[in-house]
């Protein structure tokens, strides 16, 4: 059944969108991530312009992270003060990101920047994750106990001023790196149409030593906040959020996520990380290939307004 998307201005098959939402939701539920890095490229692939895709996916991620955050909240697996400080940075970063997005769009380089940031970010994060997962599995195969590497408890980050105690996470750390991480995630989210969970969680674990009990719940709160702000700002400045598209994706996404979460519990942690790393790497490589090979058509058209 075809449905006409009012902002994207193209008709698409509603079941295709639902299936895409469910598939990405399944993956996101399985790995505890937002799945924006899969959804945005998929939407671009079915013919929705990158700008509309990025802007609409932000509201889709807001929905899935809210449903996730609620269940983590009930399990008291969210650190409210850490989430709040992250959110301060996230708000700043998102505003900066949307402004950059608007600027790049007027310069005609938005598509390139989206593609480039996908390549850099996904291949590096995916590569590291894949490698880590592989090593963990190798170690487990050799019989050695899979010890979680816990390097020196004091790195340069712990020497920074403005320290604050985050009770539920049981960490005592400067707010500067926390706000910094928030800014980075907010910025990337707004420009690339991703929630950033797959970068945020490793950053929180390795840089701030946030325990695994609170890390996913807290990261979901940040994702929720940045994606809500991104939705608002994209709607206000670029008028590109397609609410119909977003709603279909949300419905598919939240449903898929539930089944994904169940599937995720049946797979061992390091295997899960290996799989996620592979997936992220694959998306990154796909974008890289697209940039390197000669495009089928060297010319593109884009409307620049003045329509009446």
């Amino acid at each position, binding site marked *: 059944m075809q449905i*006409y998307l009012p902002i994207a*201005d193209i008709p698409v098959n509603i079941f295709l969108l639902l299936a895409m939402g469910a598939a990405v939701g399944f993956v996101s539920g399985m790995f505890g991530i937002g799945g924006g890095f899969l959804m945005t490229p998929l939407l671009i692939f079915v013919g929705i312009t990158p700008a509309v895709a990025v802007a609409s996916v932000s509201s889709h991620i807001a929905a899935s992270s809210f*449903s996730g955050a609620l269940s983590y909240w009930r399990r008291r697996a969210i650190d409210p003060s850490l989430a709040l400080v992250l959110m301060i940075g996230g708000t700043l970063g998102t505003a900066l990101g949307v402004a950059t997005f608007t600027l790049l769009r007027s310069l005609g380089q938005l*598509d390139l920047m989206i593609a480039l940031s996908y390549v850099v970010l996904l291949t590096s994060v995916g590569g590291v994750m894949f490698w880590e997962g592989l090593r963990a599995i190798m170690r487990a195969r050799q019989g050695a106990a899979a010890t979680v590497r816990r390097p020196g408890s004091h790195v340069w980050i712990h020497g920074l001023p403005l320290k604050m105690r985050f009770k539920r996470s049981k960490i005592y750390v400067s707010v500067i790196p926390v706000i910094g991480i928030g800014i980075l995630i907010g910025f990337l989210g707004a420009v690339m149409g991703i929630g950033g969970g797959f970068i945020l969680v490793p950053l929180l674990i390795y840089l701030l030593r946030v325990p695994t009990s609170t890390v996913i719940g807290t990261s979901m709160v940040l994702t929720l906040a940045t994606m809500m702000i991104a939705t608002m700002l994209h709607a206000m400045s670029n008028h590109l959020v397609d609410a119909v598209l977003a709603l279909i994706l*949300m419905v598919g996404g939240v449903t898929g996520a539930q089944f994904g979460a169940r599937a995720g519990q049946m797979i061992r942690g390091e295997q899960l990380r290996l799989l996620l790393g592979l997936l992220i790497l694959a998306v990154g490589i796909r974008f890289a290939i697209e940039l*390197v090979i000669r495009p089928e058509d*060297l010319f593109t058209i*884009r409307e620049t307004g003045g329509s009446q």
Partner: protein
Amino acid sequence: MTPCRLAALTLTLLLAGAASAHAERLIVSVSNHRVTVTPNYSGEELVLFGSVEKDAQTPASRTAAAYDLVVTVRGPRADMVTRRKERKFGIWINTDSRQFLKVPGYLALFANRPFDAMAASEVQRRQQLGLNNVLLTQRVGPDYADVVPNDAFRSAFVRLQSQHGLYREDTSAVTFLTPTLFRTGIPLPAAVPIGTYEVEIKLLADGTLVTKTETAFEIVKVGFEQFVATSARQNGFVYGLVTAAMALMTGWMASIVFRRD
């Protein structure tokens, strides 16, 4: 506007122009003057009907077989940018670009036989017969001009628009049902721009323009589509709030429906 009233209006207009001693009149009508884009819209085809009315001034030598018709449909105008990718630092990036000013978002030219067979190239150019001869203004540095038809950016623009079904040229689309009664289809693709469409019908005989007339139709979003599109444009803040609230609601509903504890 009913076809009948439109025909009457066209007639009045033409009678007013009768002083210019046109020997023929064109009477035309489109099958639908208001195409509505609904949730299940996936393209449509309109039909344009018309007839050539001769009068006493028509030269006796002019037989019906000598008539040629060119129908030009122009959609709402917008500024467009065509960009060209080049290989830089090993990757393909947009480098050069040209801006097309106020060009139609939809452009279709239909005729009953090839333009070359109808008129000399000079007439084709002056009357803008054919995609190669339609004026597409570009901004080239500080100048505004249309360029030669084989300009790389112009031809890429026309080619890409044609691939999307937005620009088309068909020199066998106009058919004469009787020597004076003609029809042509106007196919509208799914991703058609919203707005007013001008239809210009030109009658040629012996390689020169005899008369022309105009009509129009509009493509509008109605109901929900219209509502969503206008609120997104005009009330960005409220629209954003509603979308955000919708996201929260969906998330909350999901956590209730799938709650396991």
